[in-house]
């Protein structure tokens, strides 16, 4: 075996890539790279959501670098794992802003973690991208939200399922702010199409016995169940619902099913027929998405379980940021914000995504899909949905100094 210069360089580059992929490897980056931060739960209870988001960031950054980087420099990622622990979120966000001097930080999964990160980034003048579907209302010029809000998905899901199945809805939701606020939105949109919510039950995140609830639903005789259940324990509901044979009798829709790979874990029998609305499904039939899925599987293996909504939103968030940097021609925070506020749009796997300058949320496509054989069959597509819920309370062009999450009156 001969050692050539090319080989040495190649293996060095490989080693650097491995080092950069390892957590806590801020030392591995080149000295004049553009640094961005990734703060996602890679361990602990939320890691099933955080790992794909981290993978999405690495893919996006690799693509940006392969295309020549930004402003003549490479982009590198500093990764921290807050371990599903709010205190670590605060600590790592500060460290990334002060020590690593990240140009922008991508991260936070739950609304709680976002509200920990947001003020920190604002205080230390680093851009913040939040790439998760959430309940809406964040109004902060330093923050960009690339996930969907209830006015985008619930708004489409409720009319669709009530038209298809009937007017009586029974809601099961997780007992924290996302579950409660989403339930309020479902009630609002149900009212608009003359449907009624005849029951709503809330469950602490560790409840895994749903027997009485299943009987109560049968007694109430709804036309459908809408599930806003979250996490591993709640997954037991779908199993017990199917074991009682109810999935053949009362149809189900959900705003959360598939974020935690529920349709991969459950059997075909247990998940068939569930209808959801998200901006992204792996089965979106577009050349851009096909290319995205191919590149993903090439990088992470053909057996990657499922590329979900959160991963796609994160991928698109990084690309939107990169477009902002290119347009600004500078890493100055205010110049980047102004560039992003020009209505930048990215043709991503979920379709065209445009940053709405007034709310810093995204205008995006929404798909309604039904689970069949552990895959999602897309039934309807709605192009370019605006974040009207947040727009009703937030106008950053008029009040650029606003900095809070509004509770939207429903």
């Amino acid at each position, binding site marked *: 075996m001969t050692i050539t210069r090319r080989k040495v360089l190649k293996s060095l580059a490989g080693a650097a890539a491995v080092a950069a992929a390892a957590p806590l490897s801020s030392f591995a980056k080149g000295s004049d790279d553009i640094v961005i931060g990734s703060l996602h739960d890679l361990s602990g209870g939320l890691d099933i959501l955080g790992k794909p988001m981290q993978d999405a960031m690495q893919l996006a950054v690799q693509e940006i670098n392969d295309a020549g980087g930004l402003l003549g420099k490479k982009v590198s990622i500093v990764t921290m794992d807050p371990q599903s622990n709010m205190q670590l979120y605060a600590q790592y966000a500060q460290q990334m802003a002060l020590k690593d001097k990240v140009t922008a930080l991508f991260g936070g999964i739950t609304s709680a973690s976002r509200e920990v990160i947001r003020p920190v980034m604002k205080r230390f003048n680093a851009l913040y991208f939040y790439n998760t579907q959430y309940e809406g209302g964040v109004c902060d010029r330093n923050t960009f939200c690339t996930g969907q809000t209830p006015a985008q998905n619930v708004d489409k899901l409720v009319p669709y399922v009530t038209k298809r199945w009937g007017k009586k809805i029974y809601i099961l939701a997780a*007992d924290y702010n996302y579950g409660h606020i989403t339930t309020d939105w479902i009630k609002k949109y149900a009212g608009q199409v003359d449907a009624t919510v005849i029951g709503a039950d*809330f469950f602490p995140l*560790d409840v895994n016995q749903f027997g009485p609830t299943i009987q*109560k639903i049968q007694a109430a005789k709804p036309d459908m169940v809408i599930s806003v259940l979250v996490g591993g*324990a709640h*997954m037991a509901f779908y199993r017990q619902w199917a*074991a009682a044979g109810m999935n053949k009798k009362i149809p189900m829709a959900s705003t959360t099913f598939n974020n935690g790979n529920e349709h991969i874990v459950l059997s075909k029998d247990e998940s068939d027929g569930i209808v959801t609305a998200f901006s992204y499904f792996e089965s979106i039939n577009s050349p851009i998405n096909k290319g995205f899925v191919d590149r993903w599987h090439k990088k992470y293996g053909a057996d990657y379980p499922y590329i979900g909504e959160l991963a796609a939103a994160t991928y698109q968030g990084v690309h939107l940021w990169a477009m902002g940097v290119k347009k600004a021609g500078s890493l100055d925070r205010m110049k980047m914000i102004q560039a992003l506020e020009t209505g930048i749009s990215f043709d991503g796997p979920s379709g065209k995504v445009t940053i709405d300058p007034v709310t810093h949320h995204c205008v995006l496509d929404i798909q309604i899909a039904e689970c069949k054989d552990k895959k999602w069959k897309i039934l309807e597509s709605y192009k370019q949905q605006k974040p009207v819920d947040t727009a009703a309370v937030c106008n950053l062009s008029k009040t650029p100094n606003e900095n809070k999450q509004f509770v939207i009156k429903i």
Partner: protein
Amino acid sequence: MDYFAVVCLEVLNAVATLVLVSIGLAIVFGMMKVINLAHGEFIMIGGYAAITASKLGVNIWIAILLVSPIAVGLFGFVVERCIVRYLYGRMMDTMLATWGLSLLLIGLITSIYGNTTIGLSSPLGSMTIGAYQVSLYTVFIIAVAIAVLGGLYLLLTRTDFGLVARGVMQNASMSAALGINPARIYSVTFSLGAALAGLAGGVLAPITGVVPTIGVAYVAKSFITVIGGGASILTGTLAASSAFGTVNQLTTFLSTPVIGEVGLLLVAIVLVRMLPQGITGRFFRGRV
């Protein structure tokens, strides 16, 4: 009428679930005074054992009813030999040691299986009661709980092992003087408690799925049940499970699942305040 029947069935299901998750602890705590904080993790391992076995092609009933209890029973035997046997008579120390063990097990299982909920589909279909459908698996859980209680009753009252075991638990040194080896009895009893926890994990896996942290959801409830039950292992566990399960399920039916959990804990507090020795400390005294 059929709604009443369905409610009764769900109440029985809750009682049976409590019996299953706490009977192993009742044996270990009630007979040996070992506070096993890793009890929830024993249940969790039982669940993983059942799922792993059935993924490897073992018949699901064998996986649930045999593989889980045997695997966890053997594991319990190792734990007793390596850790617990040095700590008899030191209740607080057993608590610390088994707490550490529980953290270790959560970490270990997470690194093997990952953090995602995995599970089996319930092997039985559903049945119809009037206008309602219930899972047949509910009936199976109730049957398993009855079988476990019946089997233990026979074991403790009708066999030499039962007699000797009860004797050792009451007075170890006296039994030793009579030529019995208490260390062996302790070891077998602890393994039996672990096996019962494993059985609970296996039986519950198809309806709840398992995650490495699922034990936490069970350990508090099983301690409440065992303390509420008092000294008698079988009668106490059955009495406390019936009280707590009924209250939990009825309040859930009448209000919400959150209030149902609150109801259970409230009754537990009142019960322990009124009957510090547990239900069998005052009533059914001296039963097995």
